[in-house]
């Protein structure tokens, strides 16, 4: 319990953040403050260093050898839009899965109207994707495979390593949406064959909202047009956009204070250790899954195997709508969850919960076993009431 609530909405954004995050932001605002890479004076250089250190921390986390291949964006959505609109042209074919978030699906549906050919590979009703189905969808004109690393609805992890190998063998770039996994599950762009990695700063990376970015494998930048063009502090004699990283994709003054917080958040999780974070979240997920599967009247979705998913659990209570459940959990028990479609209508169609959706519980590194126990008792109480009277009220 923190401030009277049990926060189980970490898949939307993590909370609380480690104090390191906001200390770094305060330090930047108080003592640095300048515009990075613009002016050449000591504070401007210091601001540039703050940003470089954030790139270095992210590079260490993702197994990227050159930190300058990481460009910053406002969030994962912007990074994904940059890849999809920057790379795909009419006549190109792109493959994705039916478990995607709208940050992938909406740009792809729009591009489809503009002449890009789209294959949406169906996942199983438990949210699992078969690498063979992805391989089978590859064609002569396939320009990109874009996949989420884990579903934000069921938490199911996708078989990226296998798909990475297939993509390598076929010479098709693989773009991964790591919004749900970066900082919560190990990612190595080399071992997993990831060519483009979109991440968001405000979830498991412990940065503030409004931060995110993209890793771009060497050479791919030649094919990806920037979303924005403008001042970069470099090549100012030219009226054309520079063609090198990160400047090609970083026009305009960046969110330096946010990136300062993101860098500190990533250094915090590197010092805690990815293994330890994953082990803790897996244990919390196990407790949640066991408690919910033992509760009469509760339907669980996904694989229900903590080793094959992240700390995201979707359920429904017979006889109640997801929003009724979420509202009762909030108002009566202080348990904060997210009901509905989670910006992923296609994923809900896949698991058979469209259009009503599910209630999603998402734990984080700072969630305690005690909080999970209290949340479970709250769900059990609501399910018992629903069995008796068909209402959320006691």
């Amino acid at each position: 319990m923190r401030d009277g609530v049990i926060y189980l909405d970490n898949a939307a954004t993590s909370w609380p953040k480690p104090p390191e995050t906001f200390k770094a932001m305060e330090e930047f605002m108080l003592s640095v403050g300048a515009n990075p890479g613009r002016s050449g004076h000591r504070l401007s250089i210091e601001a540039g260093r703050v940003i470089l250190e954030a790139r270095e921390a992210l590079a260490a986390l993702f197994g990227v050898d050159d930190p300058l291949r990481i460009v910053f964006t406002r969030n994962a959505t912007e990074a994904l839009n940059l890849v999809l609109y920057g790379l795909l042209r009419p006549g190109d074919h792109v493959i994705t899965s039916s478990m995607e978030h709208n940050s992938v699906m909406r740009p792809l549906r729009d591009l489809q109207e503009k002449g890009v050919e789209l294959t949406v590979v169906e996942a199983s009703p438990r949210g699992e994707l078969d690498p063979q189905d992805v391989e089978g969808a590859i064609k002569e004109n396939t320009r990109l495979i874009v996949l989420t690393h884990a579903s934000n609805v069921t938490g199911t992890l996708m078989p990226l390593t296998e798909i990475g190998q297939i993509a390598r063998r076929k010479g098709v770039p693989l773009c991964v949406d790591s919004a749900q996994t970066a900082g919560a599950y190990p990612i190595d762009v080399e071992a997993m064959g990831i060519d483009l990695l979109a991440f968001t700063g405000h979830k498991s990376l412990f940065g503030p909202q409004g931060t995110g970015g993209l890793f771009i494998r060497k050479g791919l930048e030649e094919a990806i047009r920037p979303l924005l063009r403008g001042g970069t502090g470099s090549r100012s004699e030219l009226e054309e956009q520079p063609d090198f990283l990160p400047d090609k994709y970083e026009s305009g003054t960046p969110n330096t204070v946010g990136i300062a917080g993101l860098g500190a958040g990533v250094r915090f999780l590197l010092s805690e250790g990815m293994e330890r974070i994953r082990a803790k979240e897996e244990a919390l997920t196990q407790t949640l899954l066991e408690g919910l599967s033992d509760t009469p009247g509760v339907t669980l979705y996904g694989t229900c195997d903590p080793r094959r998913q992240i700390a995201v659990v979707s359920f429904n209570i017979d006889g109640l709508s997801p929003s009724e459940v979420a509202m009762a959990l909030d108002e009566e028990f202080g348990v904060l969850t997210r009901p509905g479609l989670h910006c992923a209508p296609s994923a809900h169609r896949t698991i058979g919960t469209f259009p009503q959706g599910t209630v999603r519980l998402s734990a984080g590194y700072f969630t305690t076993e005690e909080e999970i126990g209290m949340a479970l008792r709250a769900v059990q109480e609501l399910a018992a009431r629903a069995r008796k009277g068909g209402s959320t009220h006691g």
Partner: protein
Amino acid sequence: MPEGREGIYSVVLFHSVSGALRAEKLIKEAGIEYKLIPVPRHLSSDCGLCLRFRTEDEGRIREILRGKVEVQDICPL
């Protein structure tokens, strides 16, 4: 100003400030003496910042930066 004497110092020029700062970090880690300075007027660079070093360290610096940071040019001051 003995520092400015010809032949003693050289500079590395970069495309971007990010590149200059990344190089600074690697060179600092290697324990080589350097200073970040504005690009001198007689040289032209993509970014306003360059890294000045003792010319005798040029070989080591090239070695450290090879494949790590894209360098625009290395020239004597």
